[in-house]
């Protein structure tokens, strides 16, 4: 019996390594392709020229103004999107829990609705709305964040909802109210600190989504990081691919580091957390 078990385990080990090995190979090939392409020198030699350029910020902004412009726009968009998302969602969801539980289904529906509206469809519908936005607020790329908030709504909602579920909002709010706190204090000093992890994960998801957004920016002819990369890809593909690879490696390192931050609890918490991060339409 124990011999059987050991054999079964060995078989499982082989199966695991073979499966993971094959899949990782498939994942690695295009990434290696990017690396190989960016290190191509003249006449079939290897050179680190592209990467040296990329690390030299002065040179990048001088030679590739579009890239710098797109990068700054994307960072600005990410910050603005996260801010609007938090200001919009946290008080609303808290308030619904405290006073208007009847509306919770409506809010949930509205927040999850963007999952069924692909970004490309949103663009079609937003065209007249953005005509007004441009008329009222001007042409700045930053106003794309107004549409991005809608894109991140489902993911942010799920994170924040799980966070709110884990704490007893009502008791916390009543306790602080009875100690004389105003609603502002309750939000800022009681609810928000308790939602730290949820706010962090909602923000992280939003940033990742905004940095990777192409559809809306491209079709509204605004320049964010992805659009800049796309346009640069036509003239100087090497630098453009290098930026893409760098962004990917950066994202992986952040996620990998975060998987350790969870600590010993992560074994049990991993499942629900992963479930929430499930979807993004590239």
């Amino acid at each position: 019996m124990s011999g059987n078990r050991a054999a079964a385990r060995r078989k499982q080990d082989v199966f695991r390594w073979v499966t993971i090995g094959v899949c990782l190979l498939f994942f690695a090939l295009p990434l290696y392709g990017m690396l190989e392409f960016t290190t191509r020198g003249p006449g079939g030699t290897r050179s680190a020229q592209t990467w040296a350029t990329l690390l030299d910020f002065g040179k990048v902004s001088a030679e590739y103004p579009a890239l710098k412009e797109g990068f700054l726009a994307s960072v600005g968009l990410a910050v603005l999107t996260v801010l609007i998302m938090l200001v919009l969602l946290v008080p609303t969801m808290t308030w619904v829990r405290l006073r208007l539980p009847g509306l919770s289904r409506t809010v949930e529906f509205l927040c999850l609705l963007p999952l069924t509206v692909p970004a490309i469809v949103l663009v079609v519908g937003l065209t007249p709305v953005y005509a007004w936005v441009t008329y009222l607020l001007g042409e700045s790329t930053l106003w794309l964040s107004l549409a991005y908030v809608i894109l991140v709504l489902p993911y942010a909602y799920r994170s924040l909802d799980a966070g709110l579920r884990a704490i007893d909002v009502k008791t916390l709010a009543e306790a602080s109210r009875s100690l004389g706190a105003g609603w502002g204090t309750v939000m800022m000093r009681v609810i928000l600190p308790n939602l730290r992890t949820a706010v962090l994960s909602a923000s992280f998801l939003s940033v990742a989504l905004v940095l990777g957004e192409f559809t809306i920016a491209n079709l509204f002819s605004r320049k964010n990081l992805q659009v800049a990369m796309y346009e640069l890809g036509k003239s100087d593909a090497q630098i453009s691919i290098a930026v893409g690879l760098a962004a990917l490696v950066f994202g992986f390192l952040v996620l990998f580091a975060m998987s350790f931050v969870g600590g010993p609890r992560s074994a049990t918490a991993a499942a629900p957390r992963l479930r929430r991060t499930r979807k993004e339409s590239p």
Partner: protein
Amino acid sequence: MVPFFAYTTVFLLIPTLVVVIGAFLSGGRPTLGNVRALTEPAVISATQHSVVLSAVTAVGGAVIGAVLAYAVSTARVDGVLRRFVASLCGVLAQFGGVALAFAFLASFGATGFLTTWLAKVGVDTGPGLWLYEWDKGLMLVYLYFQIPLMLIVFLPAVEGLRPQWREATETLGGSTWVYWRRVAAPILFPSFVGATLLLFTNAFSAYATAAALVSQGSPLLPLAIGNTLTSEVILGQENIGKAMALEMVVVVAVAMTLYAVLDRRSSKWLAP
């Protein structure tokens, strides 16, 4: 409260209504002409391509991703391997769009390293144009983000399989095959189908990757919609775009509703 509803009305409900109502308008008058235009050969073939591409990559990605998820689930829970694969897939599932298209061009394109390498060994892959075709290259490219997404969605379900169930099967004299056939498969089935639907909508609504890779024609529905927005439109074309957008919403909504139903069903068994 009020800001939230005002905001979602302006940036979510109004756009949705614009699409829904616009699909039935032409020059300010109600009409079914836009919807009828959906039966034009070009639109029908775009729809077909989109559906086939999404379905094939969803099923393929789901099967491969599920096997990968099971392989990962047999590794140690807190081990580096699992964290590594999970984080990698987390990034790759989001890795759509421009960078992904470039990555495949650099590997499989005419001067890509794999193409050159294969040519050296004597395998001729042709002029590298297959990469731009929706039923060859695009499928491969889509799989590249579908498999990781499947792992992320499906891993929790596989982890929900309790070792006790397997032990119980063995105690009752069942073989590994019986365990998979009678215990694990029925439990995982709703999650699997649900995840496949999610992958389907994911591929169906993807625009950026295809846009960056395909530069000529619009073989896919999202590209056709994008085209009606950017090209110099013939009068009335605009609302055909809205009709196509409505068609997409309907397809995605059906898939997502099914997904929600299945998700509720599967969480019954896999609740922690």
